């Protein structure tokens, strides 16, 4: 018997097809999610080499980045986007890969539908040509983003050449305060360790505050592991995980369920297992967070002020802060609550699940959006949209002047028509505030769904707790 092992160790060890002397391994891939943006060149490569997809049924394809979120009956207007989606459709037909089309109610953001359909299960390896594959780590699956060459490698061989990462544990103990969410937790962590803090690591999130999160909250946390620089995030599977999974279309069938759960219960890190790095965060000390700059680590508690580059000791950092503030059109020292917004976007693989929509709706109910703000709600999947409609959330949003859209990535990265104009400022529940991310010259402030809803009704960034009392 080997010594105590971490969750990461266990998943890694059980997926080794081959170990090489140089430290690389051939890692078996259980589930491969494919999307339109990062796969065309991979399928093209297969075709050129006359290769097949080794395990088409361990593969699932969907178009999410490019799809319109307005009326879809006329198809995709933008010729390039349409070509990319049609290319995916041709490829999945030719190679026999299951596919959720734009007309299918199960269509949505790849990282939302994988778990929703039960593809993502504890102990699996999950890959996708998209960095936010980290989301699936919430189930105790080792899930990470890969490049297109690797997509081709996985399609052809169901394996990946990989190298073991270091293992970091982030322990968040205590209880989140009133009005503080999973999004605030992960933003606060990134503010603490920085966007390179997790480089070369897989982060396991542990502690009572993590255990207390719903699956939706855990996905939000694990999703942004990549913004903390990590290769992947992991959360130990428990009854919350199993309850979420039970009965989903791709979950283990009833007759094999107990056997599957028994296996999954062996996965959590053993007591005494060693991590390369440990970070601890006090949940109770976290307040609602907002970003002020152009990197997710540029984050403060709402109510704090925008930093002054002059206070930065390091030259590169001082220049970066000055550049961010210039881009964001903010003054050093101004109050974050004085930042006026033009748009609000509630959506993305970070925060577009039913719980996120409920949280936003609870703030919006009985209020109206500020007159100058355009607010957009983009559910993560067609099924979430339907559920929200059954719960009447769409009415709450529409009555408040919000737009209620079809599922997709939308303004998270503005590859479709949903985007900011130069200089426009957005309260966004997505995960990246890089320059131009939501449209050329657009300015992004990252926050939780409740905070974004509060900003939309107030017209400026605001402490959501003031609207909850």
């Amino acid at each position, binding site marked *: 018997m080997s010594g105590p092992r971490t969750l990461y160790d266990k998943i890694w060890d059980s997926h080794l097809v081959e170990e*090489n002397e140089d430290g690389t391994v051939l890692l078996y891939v259980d*589930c491969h999610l494919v999307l339109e943006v990062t796969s065309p060149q991979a399928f093209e490569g297969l075709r050129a080499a006359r290769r097949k997809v080794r395990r088409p049924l361990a593969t699932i394809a969907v178009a999410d980045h490019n799809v319109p979120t307005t009326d879809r009956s006329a198809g995709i207007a933008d010729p*390039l986007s349409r070509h990319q989606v049609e290319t995916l459709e041709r490829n999945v037909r030719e190679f026999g890969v299951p596919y959720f089309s734009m007309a299918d109610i199960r269509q949505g953001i790849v990282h939302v539908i994988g778990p929703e359909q039960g593809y993502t299960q504890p102990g699996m390896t999950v890959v996708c040509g998209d960095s936010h594959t980290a989301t699936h780590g919430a189930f105790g699956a080792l899930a990470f983003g890969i490049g297109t060459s*690797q997509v081709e490698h996985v399609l*052809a061989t169901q394996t990946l050449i990989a190298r073991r990462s270091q293992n970091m544990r982030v322990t968040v103990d205590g209880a989140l305060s009133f009005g503080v969410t999973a999004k605030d937790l992960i933003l606060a962590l990134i503010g603490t360790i920085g966007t*390179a803090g997790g480089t070369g690591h897989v982060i396991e999130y542990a502690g009572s505050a993590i255990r207390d999160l719903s699956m939706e909250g855990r996905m939000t946390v694990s999703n942004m592991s990549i913004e903390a*620089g990590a290769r992947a995030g992991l959360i130990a599977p428990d009854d919350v995980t199993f309850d979420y999974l039970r009965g989903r279309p791709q979950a*283990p069938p009833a007759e094999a369920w107990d056997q599957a759960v028994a296996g999954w219960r062996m996965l959590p890190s053993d007591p005494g297992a060693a991590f390369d790095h440990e970070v601890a965060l006090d949940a109770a000390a976290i307040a609602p967070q907002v970003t002020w700059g152009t990197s997710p680590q540029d984050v403060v508690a709402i109510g704090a002020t925008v930093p002054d580059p002059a206070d930065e000791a390091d030259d590169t950092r001082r220049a970066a802060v000055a550049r961010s503030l210039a881009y964001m059109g903010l003054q050093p020292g101004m109050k974050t609550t004085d930042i006026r917004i033009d748009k609000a976007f509630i959506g993305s693989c970070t925060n577009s699940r039913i719980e996120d929509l409920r949280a936003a709706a609870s703030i919006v109910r009985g209020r109206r959006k500020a007159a100058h703000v355009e607010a957009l709600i983009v559910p993560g999947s067609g099924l979430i949209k339907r559920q929200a409609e059954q719960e009447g959330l769409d009415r709450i949003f529409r009555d408040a002047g919000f737009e209620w859209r079809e599922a997709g990535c939308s303004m998270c990265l503005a590859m479709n028509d949903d985007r900011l104009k130069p200089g426009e400022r957005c309260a966004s529940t997505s995960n990246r505030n*890089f320059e131009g991310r939501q449209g050329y010259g657009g300015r992004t402030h990252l926050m939780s769904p409740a905070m974004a809803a509060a900003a939309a009704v107030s017209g400026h960034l605001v402490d959501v707790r003031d609207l909850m009392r």
Partner: protein
Amino acid sequence: MEKFTRLTGVAAPLPMANVDTDMVIPKTYLKGTERTGLGKHLFAEMRFNQDGSEQPDFVLNRPAWRQAQILIAFENFGCGSSREHAPWALRDFGIRCVIAPSFADIFFNNCFKNGILPVVLPKAVCAQLIDDAQRGANATLTIDLETQELTRPDGERIAFEVEPSRRGRLLEGLDEIGATVAKADKIDSFEARLRRNQPWRATALAAPA
């Protein structure tokens, strides 16, 4: 895969940390279905104005660096999305080597798959090289992957390290997929074990129709 052995070229200084893949290749240009042709959009939002005219101050637009083959930047280069379009755009522009104190994981990996050598050097050394690079065409750097040495314009040599397996693959220009396909037997027996141990996954493990 394309080989990389030795390169002498002009280095463009980009003295910024956290250069993300959205900067390297904005998403507007991710809609293609080819690996080539992206060089003209490299750093598009920094390199061009919205009307398509050049931003004269951006380093790759200045006469000395229009033909740069090397890029030098600060920490966490290539952070952000997994898009392999970033190395494709760099490669298509003519960049074969990026030097920085640290790289984001996926980007780092993607470079090797596309014949680009990412070199990790301490920040102080990167700052020195950026000073060298400011001197433009008169200041070429030589990067030798065989000897793992970089030569500065004044002849000083700086050692760097690349993991042996990655170095080997890049020096050879190895077809990784072909090499793994040849190991089908091992993958078959791994899957046979999975079928036994995790019977509930039979569907996913079914053979192609």
